[in-house]
Each structure stands twice: as C-alpha cells, then as structure tokens.
C-alpha cells in the first residue's frame, strides 16, 4: 500500500511539478498516473523510490514514511521500469535480469532458476536468450526483459514510467495483455505512468488524472468515464472516448460475459439487431431511442434476449478492463 499525503514537489527555479497530491494505492492494484505531458506524472512516480526528493508532504509505503527508510533498501524493494527499457548494453540478458538478485547476494542456483521462471512468464526461452546482449533483441523483447528485470527480486511494489510507450501499437497491446496476465499471478502494487487514455483504461484498477501537478480525479476508469468530476476530466477523456472503446466489442462478447436481459413480448415497439453487431453502434441505437426495446437475435433469427443501456455500461465496467465477470445482479 502506498499513500501520498499532500505530496508536493518544487524543482529549483520554482517549478511546482506536483501540488499537494493525496491518494492511496491499495495492495495488489494497478493505479495509472494519467495526464498531458508535463503534468508531473514522472515526478510523482520518482518521488516514490526517492529518485526525486519530496519538497512537502510525505509518501508512506505500508505505513512507513519513505524518508525514514534506507534509500538503497527501499529501492531494491521497488521494481522500476522506464520507457527506454534501461537495459545495460554491457550485460547479457541474464545478467541484466538478475542484477537486483545479484546485488541482494542470491546464490548462482537461485538466480538461474529465477531467470528461467521469469523468461517463461513472458514466453521467451531462457536458454536461447540468456547469453544474448540487449541490442540483439527486438524492441518488444527488450521491453519485456525490462519488465521481468523489475520483477526479478519479487518486489511488492512496481513503478512503471510509460513502459510500453515506445512500442508500436500492435506489439504494445500484446505486451499489455501479457502484463495483465502476469499481474493476475503476481499481484503487485503498481504505479503506472501513461499519457495514453486507452492504455490507462485498459490497465488501471484506478486512474489518477493529473493536470499541472494537481490531482483532478482519482477513480476507477469507468467511474471517470461515466462520472467525470469536472470539465477538465470530461474534456480529457473526450465525449466519445467510452463509446470509441466499445466499437472493439460485439454484443456476443457482452452476452458471453454478462448475459442479456429477458425480452418482453408485450412491448410492441421493438427493434431487432444481430448478435455480431458492435457495441458502439448498439449503444447509439439505444441512446437514440429508436425503439422501446432492442432485441438481439442470432444469425438464424432466434431471439437471444434484450439489450439495455445499463448492461452496456456494466460491460464497459468490467470487460474493457479485462476483469473477471461480475456476479449477475438484477439483470
């Protein structure tokens, strides 16, 4: 658990990069620091492992004031991943990955085992890649090595500064998925910087939205999408942001995950749409109130159920963030 308590950072020359930020990252959660360039995301992140000093306020980690901890020991318990992967060119992949365990004095055998386990996690062969050097790997591979390097000594906390920002979109999505999969297993407490809204929505349990060093809203992605606290938040996500993300999904996906509502034969004004329709179109149809009831049918014309705005919103809540299906309630 990481708690920010009126945390403030003023650089020399009076740039206040972070202003009195208050929030708590719960154990095992991914909190994404989101906001436009220069809003203080990196600064806030780097105050946690004390790469930046804290000007005012404090940061506590599991109840302990970070300033009271030994700096080196603190950093070794916090995994740190940066955009430019930071792999050391003079070390092999195995040496790079095992550097913190090495600093902590693990035995050769322990390191070897750990290395192979981590490589397995990201689906790369430890045998094949262990003796290679960073420049012999693709950008995506390097970034994944950067991630497992941070995980190597099994730190409870991870700090990730735009870790996938330099990758091309297809690879980025793949690595995001892979990372979420890993996170399900390792359950780290993660602070994740991003300036990409889609990435934030996908990765975050909660989002910290910053502007000019101030916290605008701290909420789950769906809350933030649905109930923005102020104009900035609304503007930032854009009016069609949530809808946009829905276009990636079909009614079929929603049906698999949440199920559909019962349809009511008594309602006369109904429209029927195919189950393969994407949710974005479906939602606009619902919002336009083209009919009192929208019935979903399969390719053979069998009625599968009805769809409502509520269900779409629920789906937004869970599916778009790759979370397990909720217990069905009142649907």
């Amino acid at each position, binding site marked *: 658990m990481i708690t920010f308590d009126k945390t403030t950072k003023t650089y020399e020359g009076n740039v206040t990069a972070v202003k009195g930020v208050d929030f708590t990252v719960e154990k095992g959660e991914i909190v994404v620091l989101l906001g436009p360039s220069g809003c203080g995301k990196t600064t806030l992140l780097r105050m946690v492992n004390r*790469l930046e000093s804290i000007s005012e306020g404090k940061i506590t980690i599991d109840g302990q004031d970070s300033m009271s901890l030994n700096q080196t020991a603190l950093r*070794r318990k916090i995994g740190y991943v940066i955009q430019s992967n*930071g792999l*050391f060119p003079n070390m092999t992949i195995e040496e790079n990955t095992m550097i913190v365990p090495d600093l902590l004095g693990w035995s050769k055998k322990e390191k070897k085992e750990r290395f192979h386990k981590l490589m397995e996690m990201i689906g790369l062969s430890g045998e094949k890649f262990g003796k290679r050097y960073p420049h012999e790997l693709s950008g995506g591979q390097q970034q994944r090595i950067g991630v497992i390097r941070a995980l190597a000594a099994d730190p409870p906390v991870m700090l990730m500064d735009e870790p996938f920002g330099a990758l091309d979109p297809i690879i980025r999505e793949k690595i995001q998925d892979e990372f979420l999969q890993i996170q399900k297993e390792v359950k780290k407490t993660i602070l994740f910087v991003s300036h990409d809204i889609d990435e934030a929505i996908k990765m975050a349990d909660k989002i910290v939205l910053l502007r000019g060093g101030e916290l605008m809203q701290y909420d789950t992605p769906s809350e933030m999408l649905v109930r923005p606290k102020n104009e900035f938040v609304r503007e930032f996500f854009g009016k069609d942001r949530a809808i946009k993300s829905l276009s990636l999904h079909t009614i079929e996906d929603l049906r698999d995950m949440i199920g559909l509502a019962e349809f009511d034969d008594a309602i006369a004004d109904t429209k029927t749409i195919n189950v393969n329709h994407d949710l974005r179109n479906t939602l606009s149809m619902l919002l336009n109130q083209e009919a009192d009831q929208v019935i979903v049918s399969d390719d053979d014309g069998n009625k599968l159920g009805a769809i409502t705005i509520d269900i779409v919103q629920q789906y937004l809540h869970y599916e778009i963030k790759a979370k397990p299906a909720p217990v069905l309630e009142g649907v």
Partner: protein
Amino acid sequence: MNKKKVISLVVRYSVYGLVALFFFWAIRNHYFDYIFTESSTFWHLIKQHLQLVLVSSVLALLIAIPGGILVTRKSFRRAEWVVSNTVNLGQTIPSLAVLALMISILGIGFKTAVFALFIYSLLPMYRNTVAGIDSIDENLIDAARGMGMKPVQILFRIELPNAAYSILAGVRTAIVLNIGTAALAYVVGGGGLGVWIFTGIQLFDNGYLISGAIPVTLLAIFVDYLLRLLERLIVPEGSKPPQEM
C-alpha cells in the same frame, strides 16, 4: 571476383610492394647496418625509449582516468568545464615546445622527458574518459539508481564497462602518440631512438636516420595493433560499437 575487389587488392598489394621496395632499397644501401654493427647501443636506445613511454604513460593513466572519473561525478560537474578547457588549451602547445619548456624547470635528462611526455599524454586519456562516461545514456544511470545500485556499483558495473571502449581508445591514442613524441626526447637529453634519428639528420647519415626512424615506426604500429587486440578483449561484448573499421 568482381572488379571492385580487384581494385582493392591491387591497391593493397601496391602499397605492400612500395613498402617492400623501400626495405629492399634501404637494405641494399646498408641503411640498417648500425642496428647490427652497434647493436648494444641500439638495444640500449630501444630500452630507453620503452622506459620513457612506459613510465610516462603509466603516470598519465593513473592521473587522467581517475581525473576523468572524478570530474564526471555529480558534485564535480562544475569543475569539468574548467578542467576540460585547460587541458584542451594544453593540447594546442606543440609537443616539442612542451619538452623544451621543461628544460628550464627540470633541467636536461630522462626525468624531464618523462615529465613532458606524461603531460602530453594526459589529454587524450582524460578527454576520452570524460567523453566515454558522458556518452552513457542518462536513462541507464537512472535505471541503475532506481533499482538501488550504489554510486560505486554504478561506476564499476555500468559506467566504466560502457565507457571502456572510449577510454581504451584514448589510452591507445595517447600511448602511440607518446612513442612518437618520445623520439623527440633527444632534444632534452632524454635518450631513446630519437638519438639516432637526430644524429642522422645532423650528420646527413641516412644509416643512423633509417636505423632510428624505422624501428620507432614499427614500434608505434605494433603497439597500436597490440592495444587494439587488448581493447577487443577488455571491452564488454554488448558495448562495442556496431562495426569497426
């Protein structure tokens, strides 16, 4: 075989041919004879030459590399500008002048020559140490700090290995330059193979000239080659530049 390769081979073997021709001509004119007729002097001069180079280079190494490391520490950053400019200015003074000016301070002899050579070797070593360390991606240092490496660990595990290529290139440049400059040690009474070169020039004796000049040249080329090999062994595989020419 294609035409380009042929041209390249022709050029290469023409140069070999010219060198061979030179040696043939020099031997036929007995220009190398002193090496054998005065072999004890010859070996004495070689030994002196090597001593000049070795002592001054080692001293320079011990000052320039730690100096370069020190100047790139965060707390000394401000000093870098001053040190670097002083050292750069030093380089514009001709080597001969550095030697000559030492006479008035240290008198004539071996020590004077060593000291001048030492001063003159500092720059390439220092400059390449600073450049090598400075060229390391800031993000690497940041990552290293972030994972809890201490400054000394960062220096020895990250900075020096990744700057090794540049540092060693500086050391090589300095030593090879030093072998050449040591041939001027004669003018301050420092001995070395320069003794024969200058004797040759002054007496118009091509024998002394060639018997001094060619061994110095071969020494420089050989040491350059040796140090390149050493670089290949020492520099970590991953931080070598992509291709070497």
